[in-house]
């Protein structure tokens, strides 16, 4: 590196240090995903003598290959079992938590190589590239936190490194990399921090991480790596309130459902933390039972918060639709909606059945991804998404008789991926084929003595 480059990097680092002068000291909770060194959505594939500290898991996919020769230390392989499924749920929560954290510094277009950063939230609206050494200076704060929010891909060049200095004696769980699509660590990269990728993670030959490789939907590909996790993340675990949705009810009919909590330390207590239950229903704070007989029709949106014995809490938003007496069951299809992509037109139709047409459609809870709208007459969800993330929305259908049904959806919006081209034959290929055809024709004619 020449003197001008060194000076430029020093200036940038100084500016960044000044801008990010308020150290971020909060903690990120990974929930049960903290027990995983490697977690994937589709497959985990290993080649060579990889060592993973912590669990190796995959869900909703199930394929884990390459163990052995890879070895798992201090954990086990979880192939689409309940542990892996819960970890994926917790990963989604953690991913969204980081995604919703405001940026301290926008580093879009800036190569991370050669920079020294202080605790803060660093954002890239598109891809992030590391070529060389990145130094994270914790300023002696044992609770320092470095968050990197990357819109699309994270790529490191061969031999790159991420190092935490002045770490107060502990480098663990200080850096988190939220990656909007895929992360690829180049050969021999020495990486620090947990990678939370929406799609896939690839650790090429000999790259090592002092942190977890957690992929939400895609594959984790390993090749002779060391994946080290150094203990659990401090602070409360993620407490999940279940079930994800509550069934709708009918005026005058008995209603009896139980909400439960997991992830914390039993016993839990339950309370309605926002909104209100349907009139006529009550929540038992000790058991989580919602019982009673609804007395009024309508849509009721409320949150139930579970608190464990240590005071850690988890909350889930529910919507219960109470239909008038005599209403049929109205169902919405499809059961899930396909994911969307930023800057790419999206169009999916939700249709209702079971009631009396025509139906009108509305949003009962949550919100569509920014850029998408719901046509109340047709159920068409369309538009061009402008923001990545996972968005929970409950669509409600009302038939001509006023009877209602609903379904909760999660729409994932991924970062824009520029299209790759795929010529059948390039210029060289065309010339080769032309020559070979000419030669083949002459050869066959000679063989047949034509």
């Amino acid at each position: 590196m020449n003197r001008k480059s060194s000076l430029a990097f020093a200036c940038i680092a100084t500016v960044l240090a000044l801008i990010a002068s308020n150290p971020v000291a909060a903690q990120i909770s990974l929930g049960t995903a903290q027990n995983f060194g490697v977690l994937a959505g589709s497959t985990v594939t290993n080649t060579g003598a990889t060592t993973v500290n912590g669990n190796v898991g995959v869900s909703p996919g199930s394929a884990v290959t390459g163990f052995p020769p890879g070895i798992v230390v201090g954990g086990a392989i979880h192939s689409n079992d309940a542990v892996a499924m819960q970890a994926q749920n917790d990963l989604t929560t953690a991913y969204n938590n980081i995604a919703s954290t405001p940026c301290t510094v926008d580093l879009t277009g800036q190569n991370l190589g050669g920079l020294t950063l202080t605790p803060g939230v660093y954002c890239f609206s598109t891809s992030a590239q590391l070529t060389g050494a990145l130094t994270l200076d914790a300023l002696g704060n044992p609770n320092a936190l470095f968050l990197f929010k990357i819109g699309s891909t994270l790529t490191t060049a061969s031999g790159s490194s991420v190092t935490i200095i002045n770490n107060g004696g502990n480098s663990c769980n200080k850096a988190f990399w939220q990656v909007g699509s895929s992360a690829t660590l180049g050969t021999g990269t020495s990486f620090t921090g947990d990678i939370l990728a929406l799609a896939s993670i690839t650790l090429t030959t000999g790259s090592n991480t002092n942190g977890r490789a957690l992929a939400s939907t895609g594959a984790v590909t390993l090749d002779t790596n060391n994946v080290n996790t150094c203990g659990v993340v401090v602070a409360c675990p993620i407490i999940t309130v279940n079930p994800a949705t509550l069934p709708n009810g009918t005026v005058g009919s008995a209603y009896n459902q139980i909400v439960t909590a997991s992830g914390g330390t039993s016993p839990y207590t339950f309370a309605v933390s926002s909104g209100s239950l349907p009139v006529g229903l009550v929540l038992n704070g000790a058991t989580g039972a919602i019982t009673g007989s609804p007395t009024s029709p309508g849509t009721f949106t409320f949150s139930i918060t579970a608190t464990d014995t240590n005071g850690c809490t988890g909350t889930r938003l529910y919507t219960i639709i109470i239909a008038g007496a005599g209403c049929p069951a109205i169902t919405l299809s499809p059961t899930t909606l396909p994911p969307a992509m930023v800057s790419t037109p999206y169009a999916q139709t939700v249709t209702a059945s079971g009631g009396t047409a025509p139906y009108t459609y509305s949003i009962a809870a949550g919100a569509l991804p920014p850029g998408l709208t719901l046509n109340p007459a047709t159920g068409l969800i369309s538009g061009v998404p402008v923001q990545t993330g996972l968005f929970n929305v409950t669509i409600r259908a009302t038939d001509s008789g006023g009877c209602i049904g609903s379904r909760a959806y999660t729409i994932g919006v991924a970062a824009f991926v520029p299209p790759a081209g795929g010529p059948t034959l390039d210029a060289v290929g065309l010339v080769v084929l032309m020559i070979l055809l000419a030669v083949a024709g002459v050869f066959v004619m000679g063989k047949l003595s034509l």
Partner: protein
Amino acid sequence: MVFVAKFCAALIVFYAIVALNPVNDFVIVPFTAIVARCAAAILGTLESGIQVTGTVIRSPRFALDVENGCNGIEAAILLAAAILAFPSTLRSRLIGLAVTGVAIELLNLVRLGSLFWLGEYHRPIFDFFHVAVWQSLVILAAIAMFIFWSLRFAERPVAASR
């Protein structure tokens, strides 16, 4: 040498035709969009979230633009020129053109599907398969089809018409 001359002449004629703007606008471009939709339909049976806009196939993980050169037409043209240049009957030539044209396009759909899948889940090897593997396979398939056709359908009495 007569075969080679006819082959080159046929190629020049074919490329002159496809270079015409009306042919490009009303034949090649719509055909390319159809190829993209067919490939997207096949991919859609295997995974959700596949969308096609014009000639661009997208999923949240990858996007592939089926451009003019990606539709298999150029390979089919080369094969067609060779078949037309080779001494045979009109009926045999028509059979050869139809069968090899369809075969090349079906192979191209498989190619597009596999490349899209590689782009989604194995991006580092996408270029290798795109540039090396699939080009080789298309070339080998075209040569094999032509040799098989010429050995099967060459009719010696027609040799006099060269």
